[in-house]
């Protein structure tokens, strides 16, 4: 870019006064925000600690001895949660994308596949995840099929994949539909087939758009990995309940909650970061 000819810029007094005023306002806003945050926090603490049941709650939920004792087990259990969703996530992504693409096939030849995809998303989005865990976890082993898994972790992963695959398929489908039809026209006019148009033009743009909602679904999946506890494996929630049951103290639950938060918060910030970057790109595309 060349600098256009013309006078060099020196800030005028008017602009300097304007900036000083804006700085003053920013300082005032920050002081007000700090004061109100502190006030709310103090009020909350007073409200909780002055409640009649507080001494009991402190004893059963904030016991440091219990925390130290249960932490290693809960953490070990939590690693199983991590393993569950690390395995489930890529499978869900592939399943979701395949289902979304099948729903987009137009040829009558594919009618049975398309109908199956619609049936799948309708049914599995409708069943509460907790119910699906029971149905898959106890139903599949009961069939006594040759080669069917009966390890509770595998069954739990299958249930989560079926449940979340249906959600993720809908996210991908909305992303695919959000790509403007003119992009398809352009690709088809270049003699790309339907498959090539999807692969090189539509899906890459769709995926970029759905990253934030996908990460949101994954934050939810991380939490729902605790539902696998219903089938018996020793993950974080199960470990905490074992400790809680033997000591009548609920601190291990709080410990498990803290571990889940420690994982979802960075993910939430990462999602915000991606969304902000996408918004900046869109704005950038507008300036031409």
């Amino acid at each position, binding site marked *: 870019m060349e600098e256009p000819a013309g006078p060099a810029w020196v800030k005028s007094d008017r602009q300097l006064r304007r900036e000083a005023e804006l700085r003053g306002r920013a300082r005032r806003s920050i002081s007000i925000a700090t004061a109100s945050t502190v006030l709310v926090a103090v009020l909350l603490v007073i409200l909780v600690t002055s409640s009649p049941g507080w001494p009991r709650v402190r004893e059963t939920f904030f016991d440091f001895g219990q925390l130290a004792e249960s932490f290693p087990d809960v953490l070990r259990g939590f690693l199983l949660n991590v393993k569950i969703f690390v395995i489930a996530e890529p499978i869900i992504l592939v399943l979701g994308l395949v289902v979304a693409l099948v729903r987009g096939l137009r040829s009558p030849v594919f009618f049975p596949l398309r109908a199956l995809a619609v049936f799948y998303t309708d049914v599995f989005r409708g069943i509460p995840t907790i119910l699906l865990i029971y149905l898959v976890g106890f139903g599949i082993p009961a069939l006594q099929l040759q080669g069917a898994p009966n390890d509770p972790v595998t069954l739990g992963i299958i249930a989560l994949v079926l449940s979340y695959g249906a959600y993720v398929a809908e996210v991908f489908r909305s992303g695919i539909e959000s790509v403007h039809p003119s992009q398809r026209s352009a690709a088809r*006019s*270049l003699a790309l087939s339907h498959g090539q148009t999807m692969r*090189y033009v539509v899906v890459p*743009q769709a995926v970029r758009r759905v990253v934030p909602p996908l990460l949101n679904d994954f934050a939810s999946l991380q939490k729902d990995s605790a539902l696998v506890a219903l089938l018996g494996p020793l993950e974080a929630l199960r470990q905490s309940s074992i400790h809680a049951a033997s000591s009548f103290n609920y601190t291990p639950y709080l410990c498990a909650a803290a571990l889940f938060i420690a994982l979802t918060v960075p993910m939430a910030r990462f999602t915000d970061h991606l969304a902000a970057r996408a918004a900046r790109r869109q704005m950038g595309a507008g300036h*031409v």
Partner: protein
Amino acid sequence: MSLLTIEGVWKHYHHHSVLRGIDLEVAPHEVVCLIGASGSGKSTLLRCVNLLETIDDGAIYLDGAEITDVRADADQVRGRIGMVFQSYNLFPHMTVLDNITLAPRKVQKVSRVQAEKQAGELLARFGLSDKARAYPDRLSGGQQQRVAIIRALATQPRLLLLDEVTSALDPTLVTEVLGVIRELKDSGMTMILATHEMSFARDIADTVCFLEGGVLLEHGPPEQIFTAPEHPRTREFLQRVLDAGRL
């Protein structure tokens, strides 16, 4: 023999006829300009020729073979026809070079090296060599439209369809795109343009066609259409264009 023959083509959208029995012959190296008000059917006709729309009656022939035959391979036909759109429709997630080489590499199975060499030559010819690695959103509208034209040329089509390619451009950027089209005419490219740029149509066209309400009312060399139109509706249209200061 004509390169393209359009024979009695009809197209309806929801009980409304957009094209009503269009007949047109385009000879090799001929430049045909379609003029007429918005909604007269110019864009639809181009989309039908490129098989982006299916026609409801009639037939279209390219090099003597019927392309509207339901058994014809539409992708194979589109490979021989290039199309450029009003809103450029570049692929925003690809660089200029990838936009241009996508069809040669994936459809015509040209090697990446070979495709990029050809794309480089086209970019150099139209003064865009420094933009090869840029993404479309970094280019001006005129540059984007020139890239879109190069992308359509990269598959070495027999026929180029240009659908109001300057309508979305700032007046100062129109000339650079028209310059490209003029150069294509000089190199012998057969083209059909839907356009609102009357003085350009008059200047570049071998044949000008006036469409109204989906009917091709009049066609002939530009001198005849612009100076001595036979049909009263053509005269009326040109008068309105003249009144708007666009001729």
